[in-house]
Each structure stands twice: as C-alpha cells, then as structure tokens.
C-alpha cells in the first residue's frame, strides 16, 4: 500500500513542483527585447529574416506561422536539433538518453491505460508497450551511462561538472538499470509491469523483492527531485525559446505588448545601483533616479 501511495505522492509532487516552477518563471518581470533570429514564426522568412525587413514595418500586418514555430519546437524536443548540428558527439549520448525518457513516458501511459481498461490483451498494445519499455530502458540507460562516462573522461567537461550534476546522472542511470533488470524478465516490459501498475494504482502493490523496492524508490525520488533542480529544463526550455529568443513582439499602440509595457513601467524598483552616475545625488526637491 505504501508503494501505491508513494506513486500518487511522487506523481502529484512532480506535477505540482513543475507547475510551480513554470509559475515562478512566468511571473518574472517583463524583460527588454532580446530576440535572436531565425525566429521560426516569421512567416515566409526562412532565411532568418523578420518583419523589420519591411519598409514602414509598423503599418503592415504581421505574418506569423504558429505551425512553423511548433514544427521547430517539435524538432528541438524530439531530435535536439541544435545539439545535433552544434556538437554531434554530445548528441550521440544526449539524444538516446532523452529519447529513452520519452519512450518511458509513453510506456508509463500505456501501462496505465491497459491496466485500467483491461486492454492488456490487445496484441498491438502489448507489443507497443514492450517496445517502448525496451527502447526506453535501453536508450535511457545507455545514454545516461555515456553522458556520465564522458564527463568523467573528458577533463574539459570535468572541470565544469558539479557534484550535483554527477549525482543527477548516477541517479538516472541507477533508475534505468534497476528498471531494465526488473521489467526485462516476465513479459518483456509489458505483462509484469502492467500487473505492477494495476496494483500500484489500486494501492495494493507490495514489491516482490529488493530490486523492485529500490527501483520504485529511485523513480519516486526522481519524480520529486527532477522539478526542483536543473533537470527541470523541460519547463525552462519553453520560456527560453518562447519568452526570450523568439519573443519579438513590438510595443505598438493598442497591442498586447503595449499593455504589458504599461504595466511594467508602473513597477518602480526599490533596489538601486551604487555607482555615482547610476544614482546621482538628487537635486533639491527631487528624488534620485531609480532604475
């Protein structure tokens, strides 16, 4: 029963802490424009251009392609395009690791679905579940191990790697390894895992051995730990792209951005910088300038 409750607590905390992180990032103050090109939403400008290529750009309707933006983001999430182009050797470890995680996410959903609906006997679902589990544990485990080995072997990476970053990879590898050992047996990531999932969901699960207990504790621990550390970049990446690199909304009269700017300008900072030019002595009857 405890492992069943633990699953609900861990999953709940994962969602809540991830949402909290998103909320915190979202409520940071409006920043100045710092966009970078290419910005995929710029319709018809695959060369990397923007609406600023138009004479009197403010008089023309913006041509925006949300589909292009989604496609770019999708490519980045599924394939990690920038890493592929910028650092192929790193990608060879990072992509399997991330793709393995995605497979395990789908695997978990399939296990929940089949456990709750009794569709576990549908052969296609059984095969798909087994495939996702197999690929997930294999790619995730191999990826995390290679990432760890790379950091240990390459002195130039090692000098930047903190103990916490090693710990992250060790915990992940341990979870993949124990999971692979546990679920590889009966039913190849499918039947025994589905049964365990049903028992977990109905709060009637008791680990059959130490391996299962260790694996589940690792998974529950990671679900709580991931959103509070830098591994929560699945949240940060959204803001980094959509609210930072691709945010080129102009402050035009009657626009949504104009309203945001108006609100931001009303917030006067209380902290001031100390250099003489930053905070000049106030003239008689005037306050010093705050930035």
């Amino acid at each position, binding site marked *: 029963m405890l492992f069943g409750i633990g699953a609900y607590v861990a999953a709940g905390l994962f969602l809540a802490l991830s949402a909290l992180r998103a909320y915190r990032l979202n409520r940071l103050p409006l920043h100045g424009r710092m966009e970078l090109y290419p910005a995929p939403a710029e319709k018809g400008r695959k060369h990397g251009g923007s609406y600023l290529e138009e*004479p009197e750009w403010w008089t023309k309707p913006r041509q925006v392609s949300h589909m292009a933006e989604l496609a770019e983001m999708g490519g980045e999430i599924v394939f990690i395009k920038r890493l592929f182009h910028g650092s192929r050797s790193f990608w060879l470890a990072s992509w399997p690791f991330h793709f393995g995680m995605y497979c395990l996410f789908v695997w978990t959903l399939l296990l929940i679905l089949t456990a709750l609906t009794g569709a576990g006997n549908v052969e296609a679902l059984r095969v798909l579940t087994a495939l996702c589990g197999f690929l997930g544990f294999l790619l995730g485990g191999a990826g995390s191990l290679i990432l760890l080995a790379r950091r240990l072997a390459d002195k130039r990476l090692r000098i930047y790697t903190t103990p916490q970053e090693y710990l992250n990879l060790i915990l992940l590898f341990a979870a993949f390894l124990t999971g692979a050992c546990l679920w590889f047996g009966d039913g190849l990531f499918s039947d025994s895992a589905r049964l365990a999932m049903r028992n977990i969901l109905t709060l009637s699960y008791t680990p059959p051995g130490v391996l299962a207990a260790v694996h589940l504790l690792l998974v529950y621990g990671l679900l709580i730990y991931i959103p509070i550390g830098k591994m929560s970049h699945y949240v940060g990446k959204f803001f980094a792209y959509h609210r*930072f690199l691709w945010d080129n909304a102009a402050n035009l009269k009657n626009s949504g951005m104009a309203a945001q700017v108006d609100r*931001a300008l009303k917030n006067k900072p209380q*902290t001031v910088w100390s250099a003489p*030019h930053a905070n000049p002595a106030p003239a008689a009857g005037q306050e010093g300038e705050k930035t």
Partner: protein
Amino acid sequence: MSGIIAPKDLGRRTERLINYDSLPPLPAPYDQWPEPKFAEIKPEWREKYCTSLDGCVAIDTMRPPASDEEKKAFVEKFLQGLGKLFSDANNGVRQPLELSFEYCAKCNTCSEACHVFQASGGQEPHRPIFRAEVLRKLYRSHFSGMGALRRALSASEIDATWETIGRLGELAYRCNLCRRCAQACPLGLDNSLFAKEIRKIFSQEMGLAPTPLHDKGSMLQLKVGSSTGIGKAAFLDMVEFLEDDTGERIGQSIKIPVDKKGADILLYHNAGEFVAWPENPAAYAILFNKAGLDWTLSSEVMTYDSVNYGIWYDDIQAKKIALKQIEAMKALGIRRVVVGECGHAHKAALIVSDRLIRAEERLPVESSLPLLAEMVTKKQIRFDPAKNPFPVTLHDPCNLVRQMGVVKPQRDILQALCPAFREMTPHGVDNYCCGGGSGFAIMNSPNFSSFRNQVSGRMKFAQILNAFTLEMTDQSLPKYVCAPCSNCKGTLREIFEVYKATEQYNLQYGGLVEIMVNAMAELKQPYLEFLQ
C-alpha cells in the same frame, strides 16, 4: 601557465593566465606570413591596470587595490552588485538571466559557435560557459543558504579575491556579445548575457568601465549630444563641407537638408560616419534625394548621433540616452526615423528602447536597408551593375542580422548591383562577428587593439580571405568587403592595417550605400575612392 585552466583558477597568483602564442593559422596568403607581434605589457602597467588575465587591458579605469583593505572593499562591492543582478534593480533582464543561470547543461555547444574561443586556439577562459560558471559559483557561495557549506565542502568553489574579480571584469570584455553562442544553445540559453551582466556590475555598482565607452562615450554623449564630442555648430560645418566636397566629387551639386520642418524622414546616422567615413552620409544624401524621399538630418542635440554605447555595458546609461533621443526626436516634427548604417544604433533604437517607454510616446523607427533595397528592386534609381565589376562580399553585422532579422534587403541590393558578389561562409544569421562588437571597435589603449585585431577579429578576417581565395593575390584587382555598420568598418580598417591587407592585396572595405552610388548610371566618375 600549463594545463587546463578551470574556473577556480581564475584567482591563481600568476603574472598572466592566458598567452596568445599559438593562434590558429590564417588562410592563404597569410599562412606564409609571420603573425604580427602582440603589444607587450609595459612594466608600469602592472601597477595601473589588471594585466594578469592575458596581458591586454580593457577596463583602463580599474586600478589594482593597494592594500588588503582596498582589496576587501573591491570584492565586497562586486558581491553587492552580484546580488543586485537578481533583484528588482535588474528587472529588464531577470527572466533570461535566471534561465541561463539555472539551466546550462554544459554541453559546450556554445564553444563550437564562439569565434573568440575558436580563434584563441581554444583557450579555456574564452569558453562561453567559463565566465558563466565563475559567476554561478560566486553567487551560490555568497548568496545561497548553503553557501558556507558549499565553500567548506567543495574544493572546486572559487575564492572571491581581487585577482578573481579583477580578471573576471577583464574577461567580460573578451566577449563581443554577438550571441552566436545563444543561437546554438539547445536549451535556448545565452552565455553572452553573463559577460554583459559582469560589465554592468563593474559599471553600475563599482563605477568601472572602459574610458572610450563611458567617460568619452555615453557620458560625453549625455553632456554634449554626441560621443564624437561634436556640437551643433561643428555638425553644421561638417554638413556644409560634405555638400561642397561631394558635389565636387560627383560633378553635380547636392543638397543635404538639415532641420527641415515636417519632413517625412529623419535620417539618423552614427556621427562617427561624418568624421571617419563622410562618403557614407554623402552617399545616403545622393540616394535619398534621387529617390525623391522627403527627408532631413537634424542638428539638434541627441538627434544627430544615433549611437548608444550604454547597450554594451550599462543599462542605466543605455536607458538615459535612449529616452533623451526619443524625446528630442519627437520635438522635430518628423513622421518616422530611419537609421543609417550602424548596427548597434539599429539595435538601440529599434530593439533595446522598444519597451522602455509607452508606445504612444515613441516615433516609429526603421532600418534604412529596406528603403535602399526598394530603390533597386522598384527601379526608383537607374543603376549600372557593370560599374561594380570587382569581387564583393558582405559582412553581416550581428546587431542588424542575428539580433534583428534584417538579412535580405542588403543581399537584394548586392546581388542586383555587383555581378561578382559572393557570400562568406557562414553568412546571414549564422555570421561571425567582425571582432569589434560590443565596444571593442573603439577600444584601443593601452593595448586592447591587439586582442581585437588578432583574436576577436581573426575569424572574420579568415572568412574574408576565404571569400576571395581565387583573387586574393591579384594586387591589381580591388576586393570589396561591404560592411553596413560603422563599428564593423572601424574593426575591418584596423585588421586590414595590421595585416597590411589593403597595401599588399588591395583588400578594400566600405558601406552599402557607397557601392550603390558607385553603380548609379548617371555618375560619370567612380564614387568609390579606390577606383578613382
């Protein structure tokens, strides 16, 4: 110093942390040339500046503390500023800063993209994540609740000493803020932001910034209206001289309107153009007049110099200048502002200042490049491309291209008017910085120009040489690098001089409008000086 320099080594007691004695070779014909000598440190400089990073000095106002008390005060002041980066004093940057601070996976994709890291021969402190990691460790040691524990437990933490902080300040001026690293980052983070934020702590909290950017830059501009120091009377004299000189040169009189009430366009130049490259504003005048545009220059303070050096090192100065410029423009009675060939002025006027003030209180601002492209594509002016038969390549100013997305207009022009136009590799939004970005172009003393000309400008010079591989050694054939940006032109001028590229190989540089005027069918004489 031998071995790999780790972030914690930044405070190591050594005379110099980095040496540039094995820079990557340049392409032919410079593969056969000895590398020009780097400007050496004079012994007395060690008393006056922080020379222990790489022997070059950017922050010429940073005096080494003389006593332990001064060292302590210096470090405390820095830490005080570091804390403010994450406070409401820094609201305009906090979201991107916190994202970049928190999420870096240290995959080093940014290093592959960084021209300074590559051109330095892979010197570790030039790796984009190096200064970010130093700042991260300093912040976590001094501001996180676990800071004391971290310092006690971890040998990899960094001691906040004068050596560490002084070198970190210098290191912030070894990044061009071109943001190519951010473009490459799989997580969308910006490591150049840390260089800018360190510069801000030094300037906004500690009052330390390079003299050309601050005292002779933004402060002078706020005082007299232009970082060139030119006042209204001198500006009007220069315009008058330009009319006479250009008229003589092209064989027809030209009129440059100044302070024309109710004009449609205020043409907004970097005032440095009038001093260093007057043929550029003159070419604009020829083209705008010929295209029948209703335009004017302004002689009023803050409206004849579009520069804003604040955007490189100090948000307060940037904001003060931008707001004064906006206010002064509104008083002119013009309808729109069109920015001339200056990359950082484009970014300052269109991007940085966009959210500083209510939309109702601004005039619309645009780049001149789309207007110039229309003159060609809509045949508003008759051009003869045969007048530009020589090889031409295009440098993409980072501010204008990667950071604003103005990519195509300049290409439309060059493809139409220059039969021997060819792109550099890479180009467009993937370009490399000229090496003079973020103020380096105007920072020369005591010896900073060596770093700019031979390290930060190295990748650009290599790109240029590669663009002209077949023609490079033909001295009789001019090879033109079109650089539609004042700072980029300034940098190219210096690089070409150090490597004697014009003298030896007839490598030329200039703006976009000059080559357009050179192709005007009605002009009898070539406009470009090297053809005269």
